[in-house]
């Protein structure tokens, strides 16, 4: 019988971490642990929060971190104050949008136009959030908590969570997600500040290399996460249709058009297979 008490104490520790993070009622978690005992197998080892932090620090957090080092350096070039540059990562948490923001300010583009460009570049966050939330929602979660949870949605978090969370017991996902996402966000925010301070020391070819991390890592992470025909079709269609739709509907709505048309085609291809 030795494993049983061990597992229960582990469950209690898990509740404690998640509760202290999210201020949720302990009763709910105990009930979920009860289901856990009778139903799906609990995973051994450290708590989901710690596993999330660990998985992030193995690689993804550093990749995002270094790409935001490039963003911090760009913010300094543009003349943004240090604190505002660091805050841009905490608040926006979307490297391409941050690059558009600072690039637009540097180019002297009218601010309302920059706002529109930032918004159009971030449309991806809508379908990403919609597909993440059902995995993270818990009974009794307030709207404010859900908005807070959704704020962490970003490409790295989305790709990795989609890869790992579906096979995870539902009661472990929330803690894992918060651990993973917070580790990424904290590393990235720190690196933004470091990039800002090092800006003068970063030669142009290295600055190019840092900003290149975003498309390079997105590409490889997406390929790594694409296990089904639907995913693979979506990647090929997205890459192929984007330039076509830039020509057809212009650089403002091309992403939206590509997503809707290509995504629907990929979904139909995936359905045909099933």
């Amino acid at each position, binding site marked *: 019988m030795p494993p049983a008490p061990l597992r229960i104490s582990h469950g209690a520790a898990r509740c404690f971490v998640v509760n202290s993070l999210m201020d949720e009622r302990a009763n709910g978690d105990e009930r979920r642990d009860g289901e856990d005992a009778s139903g799906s197998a609990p995973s051994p080892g450290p708590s989901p929060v710690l596993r999330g932090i660990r998985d992030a620090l193995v690689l993804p957090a550093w990749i995002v971190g270094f790409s935001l080092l490039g963003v911090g350096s760009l913010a300094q070039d543009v003349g943004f104050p240090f604190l505002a540059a660091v805050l841009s990562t905490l608040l*926006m948490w979307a490297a391409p949008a941050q690059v558009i923001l600072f690039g637009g300010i540097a180019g002297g583009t009218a601010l309302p136009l920059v706002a529109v460009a930032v918004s159009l570049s971030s449309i991806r966050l809508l379908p*990403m959030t919609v597909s993440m939330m059902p995995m993270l929602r818990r009974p009794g979660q307030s709207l404010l908590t859900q908005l807070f949870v959704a704020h962490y949605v970003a490409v790295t978090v989305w790709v990795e969570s989609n890869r790992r969370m579906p096979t995870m017991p539902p009661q472990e996902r929330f803690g894992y997600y918060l651990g993973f996402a917070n580790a990424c966000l904290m590393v990235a925010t720190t690196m933004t500040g470091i990039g800002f301070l090092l800006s003068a020391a970063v030669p142009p070819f290295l*600055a190019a290399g840092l900003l290149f991390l975003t498309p*390079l890592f997105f*590409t490889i992470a997406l390929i790594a996460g*694409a296990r089904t025909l639907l995913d693979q079709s*979506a990647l090929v269609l997205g890459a192929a249709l984007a330039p076509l739709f830039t020509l057809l509907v212009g650089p403002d709505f091309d992403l939206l058009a590509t997503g809707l048309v290509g995504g629907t085609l990929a979904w139909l291809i995936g359905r045909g297979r099933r």
Partner: protein
Amino acid sequence: MTTWEITIAPLWPYLVLILVGFLPSEIWRALGVVVSRGLDERSEIIVWVRAVATTLLAAVVMKLLLTPTGALAAAPLIARFGAVLVGIGVYFLARRSVIAGVIAGELILISITYFAFA
């Protein structure tokens, strides 16, 4: 400058950050929370939404490579695409190692850009 302008000037970057940076991108996450209410993770609509998201991400990558902003614009087009292709190739050759692919792609881009500047 009026007193009002002197007071507001140091806060200007923060206002820009909130109004031009934060709100225009955060609105999509907030909308996502509202839209996803009551949806089951295994429902067909979520499968479709995930397909749209994946397609959009591939499109974002394509746009970043074709029309980059900031320092990346200085890297030649051939370097940007060549480096991504090498990165993908090395990822598969190194038995699906993401880090190997990323390092290989970075080395290609940085060295070509270095010689393009030199």
